Every structure is written in C-alpha cells, then in structure tokens.
C-alpha cells in the first residue's frame, strides 16, 4: 500500500495505542500541523495569511481551522498528499444543485483505525448482529457514513444485514429476518442508521418490533438533504414505542464527511465525547474567541486522524463547551479518556441558503 508520509504509520500506531505511547496530543498535533503546512500548499497559503506557521505556534489551539465550505472549493482541494495518490473521495450529501464538499484520501487505513479504536476507547457496545439502515459501501463508495458502517460491520459483527437497497428503500423483510435469527440465538441486535432512516422504518413498521434483550441502536442525527425535522426527544420516544428501546439504549454519533473521527453520546441530555486524538473548542463567532462557559458558539474540531486534509475544522454547528466534570454525563460506562466534551445544539440555521424573509419559515409554525 502507498503511504504518503511516515506520519501516517506513526499516527495509526498512536491511535491504536490510544495515545498512550508517551507522546501528548499537543506533540502529535504540532507534528501533524507541520506535515500539513508542508504538504498542503493551499492550506500553507491560508496559514501564512493568518501569520501562522509551525515555527510560530506551539499549541494545538493556535492551529488555523478551515471552514467546512473550503471542502467545496474543488479548484483548491484540501489535500495534504500528492493528487495522483488519491484513492478515495468522500462527498457530502445534499440536494442536486448544491456544491458538494470533497474529502480525498490516499488510503483509508488511518480513517478506519480511528473508527475502531474510538469505538473501543469509548467502550461502545460491539454490534454483534448488525442491521444497517444505510447504503452498502459497495453501492455508495462516496459516502463516509456507509464506509464507517462497513468498517464497524467488518471489525465487530458476526452477522450484518444491509437493509437499504440501491434506491434508498428499506428492506423490511430483511430487517424482520435478521431480528428473528438474533432472537432465536438469544443475542442482541444493533440497529445502525441515520435519524431519517429510522423515521422511515418507524413509519413503515405495521407493529412494534420486538428486539432481543440487550439490543441497542445508533443514530447519526441530522436530517441533511431532507425537509424532515424532529426533536430528539420525539425521535427517542419513537425508539421506545416502535423498537422497545429506552433512550439509554440509543447512541447518537456526530461526525461529518470533512472529519476522520467521530463523537458519541448516549440517551438524551448528555454531552458528546470524542476519542483522545481529538479536541474541540467552542468559538463565539462575534469575538472569534473561545465562548464563555455555558455560552453557545460554533464548534471547532481538531482531529489528528484528519492527516490527509486539515486537522482543524471550523464547523457550522452550534454547541456549548463542556467542562471535564461533564465527562460522566456522556452516558458511557467506561472511564473517559477522550477529548473535551460538548453539548450539541444543532446545525446553525444561518448555514442554510436563504434570500430575504429570514424568519418567514416560522410564520405557519408559530
């Protein structure tokens, strides 16, 4: 396999060891920043415009973050390796007319290591019998979410049912069959999908599905590219009603195409937490400084596994920074070794295209 830089092997090993090998997050972050500054000319130009360079900064806080919209500038790809080494490209979802963001990779080894190591580090339940409500990665190679599901399936599951066909329709018969087999063996089922795919499932189920004891679900949240919206409490009430799953048996995953690591929470009202090779900040966009404790702002994510693009990503999601004391509230039973926590408020409404009549959509709802 082609490796663009020994930095990748080093990071894979560090992530496999959960950063217990002696190097701190900051040391690795400075190394990744130097690599990206040297290998990624567009990013280097941007950093220079901000008067930042590896020689001028010594803390991950100072690494310039790029907006997720930068991944939509196809003429200026955010790539920290030679273009001819590109082997995989994940694209953002969205409507036909929207410009889609592109995240390029020379290999997915680091990406996959991040998925599986985070799963273990955060002590998430292993999906033994996985029922997956997304497209199979063979049919959707551009989908980072499908790839993540595939990685989880290959790494952890003894059986997997891909329950969405190539047209995006759920295969109810396959879901029922998978549940019957798991029930017969007395082993729990893990249902994995987007919030919208679960909504479709709930609408199509003629009667509640009885899952084996210990079953759980993971929803990825968000209704991007659709006109559907639902409060998390309403969605989780449906998990209870339709699948018999209490809220603490439902995990929410938060990530995006522009990242290579994921953040998780369980149930309702808890913070998200990421693995130890990530850090987060919440920035008040008015001052462009860290938001005050308890104050909402825009989430900035530092993800060492994003070696092949840019490690610091400025999202358009609103969050409130959590303090270390929030750690037990993530809902996970294991000891927390990850980065800071944050409470996700949601997608910034201003991130959506709009003309005039900004507040008009509430006219019929209020």
């Amino acid at each position, binding site marked *: 396999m082609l490796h663009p830089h020994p930095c990748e092997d080093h990071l894979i090993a560090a992530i496999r060891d959960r950063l217990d090998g002696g190097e701190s997050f900051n040391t690795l972050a400075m190394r990744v920043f130097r690599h990206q500054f040297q290998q990624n000319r567009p990013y280097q130009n941007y950093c220079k415009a901000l008067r930042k360079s590896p020689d001028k900064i010594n803390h991950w806080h100072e690494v310039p973050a790029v907006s997720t919209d930068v991944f939509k500038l196809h003429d200026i790809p955010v790539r920290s390796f030679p273009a001819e080494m590109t082997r995989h490209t994940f694209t953002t979802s969205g409507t036909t007319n929207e410009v889609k963001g592109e995240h390029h990779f020379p290999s997915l080894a680091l990406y996959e290591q991040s998925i599986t190591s985070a799963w273990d580090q955060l002590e998430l339940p292993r999906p033994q019998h996985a029922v997956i409500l997304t497209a199979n990665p063979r049919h959707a190679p551009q989908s980072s979410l499908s790839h993540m599901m595939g990685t989880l399936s290959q790494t952890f599951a003894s059986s997997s049912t891909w329950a969405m066909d190539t047209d995006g329709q759920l295969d109810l018969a396959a879901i029922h069959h998978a549940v019957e087999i798991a029930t017969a063996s007395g082993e729990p089922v893990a249902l994995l999908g987007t919030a919208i795919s679960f909504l479709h499932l709930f609408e199509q189920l003629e009667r509640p599905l009885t899952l084996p004891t210990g079953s759980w679900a993971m929803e990825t949240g968000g209704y991007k590219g659709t006109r559907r919206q639902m409060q998390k409490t309403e969605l989780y009430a449906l998990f209870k009603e339709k699948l018999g799953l209490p809220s603490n048996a439902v995990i929410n995953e938060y990530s995006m195409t522009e990242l290579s690591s994921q953040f998780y929470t369980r149930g309702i009202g808890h913070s998200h937490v990421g693995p130890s090779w990530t850090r987060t900040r919440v920035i008040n966009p008015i001052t462009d400084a860290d938001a005050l404790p308890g104050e909402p702002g825009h989430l900035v994510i530092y993800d060492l596994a994003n070696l092949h693009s840019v490690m610091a990503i400025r999202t358009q999601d609103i969050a409130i920074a959590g303090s270390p004391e929030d750690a037990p509230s993530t809902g996970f039973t294991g000891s927390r070794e990850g980065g800071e926590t944050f409470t996700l408020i949601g997608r910034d409404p201003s991130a959506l295209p709009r*003309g005039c009549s900004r507040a008009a959509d509430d006219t019929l709802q209020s």
Partner: protein
Amino acid sequence: MTPTHDRIQLLAKACQDPSLIRFMGNISASDLSAWLDTELGHPDALDQFSPHGPLLSKATAPNTLLHIVSGNTPHAAFQSLLRGILLGSHNLIKLPSVGLPDLTDWIARLPETLQKMVETCETLTPDQQRKADAVIAIGSDDTIAAIQQQILPHQVFIPHGHKISIGIIDGDLQNAAPLAARDASLYNQRGCLSPHAYYVDESDPSHRGDALKFAESLATEMENFSQTNAPEPLNISEAGAVRNLRETTRFAATNSDSTRLWESTDNLDWTVIYQASPTLNLSCLNRCIYVKPKPTELNHHTLGNEVQHLSTIAIHPFSTATAQQLSSLPAHRICPLGQSQNPSIFWHQDGFAPLASLVKWQDLG
C-alpha cells in the same frame, strides 16, 4: 367603511410618523389619491360608479385582508398594510414569532378610525384564515407553497416569495460606490430589495479591471457608511455565517487571483468579496456583498439559478434606455443605484399591481 377621501386624509397624517417615513419615505394625501387614480382609474373608484367603457363600474375592496408577514424587515409589512388601509379593508396581520415592533408600534399610534381596521395575531386559526377574502403572504418559497395549499377558491392570493436584488455599474465608479454602499447596508441587507452582488461593466478596454477597483472603493464606502449607520448587533448564528463566509473566502483568496476579500477590522460590520465568476451567489446578509465583472450576456446561463429570484436591479448611471436593455431579465424593477431600498408606492411589487390585484368590480349597464 369610511369614505376614501376621509381615509386618505387620516392615512396621510399617519404616514408622517417618523417610523413609517424611515421605511416608506414621505407619502402625502395627494400621493395616495394619485395612487388610487392610477391603479383603479379614479380616486373615488371605491365609493362610486365611474365610466368604464360603455359601463359604470365600482371597485370593491376585500372585506377582510389577511397579511402573513415575515420577520426579516418591517418594510414589506408596512407596504402591505398601507395598501389594505387605503382600500378600506379590515386587515388581519399574522405576525412572525419574532414580532415586528416597528409595525405594531405604528399601529398603536394610528387614529382610532384606522386602528379599528387593523388586527394583529401571533397564531392564525383556521376560521380566521377562512374568513379572509384576500391573502397576501410574504415568506420563503416553502412558506408560500404551504399557504397556497390552504387558499380557498373564493380567496385572492398574492404571494411574495423570497427575492434578491443586484446592481450593475458602468463607469463613474467613485460616485457609484457610496450609492452602492447605501443600498447594500440599509436594513442589514435583510430585505428583498437588498443587493447581494454588484456587476461592473468591463467590456470597454478602458474599463478593464474596473470590478476590482470598484470593490476597493466599495469597501471604503461600506466603512464610511457603517461609521454613521452602525449595523444592528448580530446574533451568534448571523455572526457565524459571516465568519464562515470570510474564512472560506480568505482561503480562496490566498490561493487564487479570482477572489479578493475586504473586511471591517475587529468587527463583522461589513464584508466585500470580489469574485471573477459571474455566478450570482446568495450573500449571507448583514452587509456582505459580492462584486463581479459583468458578463457580456446577463441571463440564466451566465448568472445561474438565483436569477429567477431577482426583485430589483439598481443601475448606475441610470437612464430609461439602459434600464430597458435589461428588461429581458426576470426582475420586476430596474431603478437608479442608491434607490434600491426606496421603491415608489406605485411600484408593482413582484409584478403585481398592489391595489388593482386586490379589488373586484361591480358593473352597471
């Protein structure tokens, strides 16, 4: 219903209220009378039968006019209500959840006779909706579509969906810049009449590079305007959109000559972006404006999909002949630069004759 003449006198007095002048300009009794005359053929067309070809005809205003207004600016709501009062209708205003204090404060200051003609609500019952003879809706395309589904066969429906505006500059850059800054800054760009982009003509060889020069001049004038007309404070969401736009643009600008960025220092007061691409992009509002070289042809192919949402094109220098050359574009209004935000009360908003579209007629003979 009070006679039209009496209503005009009361309304003209109420139009002298500074809050209304701020949004609508000076409107006199003779303006209101002339407006009725122009649209309905006679200033007393609502009170008496007037000759109409071989017939005698009288206009009938909607008994109840429902205005569903949005919260971005009170401008459109003022226009809509003014029309309803002038026609003598009972006006039910569905306010947005964020409220419209400029409008409701003005209503509270109306003389009793006019105040009785206006009712506001924050939620709309099906019964209220059914009783309306005409419905004016201001909002996004989704909102308009949702309202349209509820319109009954007897109801007149006037939709004002989301719109954007642009400007076109052909020389005289120094004089154009302050006018353009005013149009792009007023009401923090939240209205349909707010320009999102200025197109600068570079077709003459002596004008090569004018778009870049204009962008620089515009940045200076945006700063000057903000010194005397500070923008309203931004919430986190609005500020986040401006930051995101600025940083994405900065990334592009540091890697390509086809993009440049000018921005206010130490605050988010204004942002000017030069882009060589002619595609019309939606600004994130709040005084963020694009400047682009004008393509040889202005049409759907060169400007992109947003062109179908054009409301106003402000041009400089303005002449009727120049304006007519742009009449093939789907904009309903072409006006002088600097006047984008000040349409005449006579204007056809979104192509509708605002009074004539609402009335029905009774004929004799």
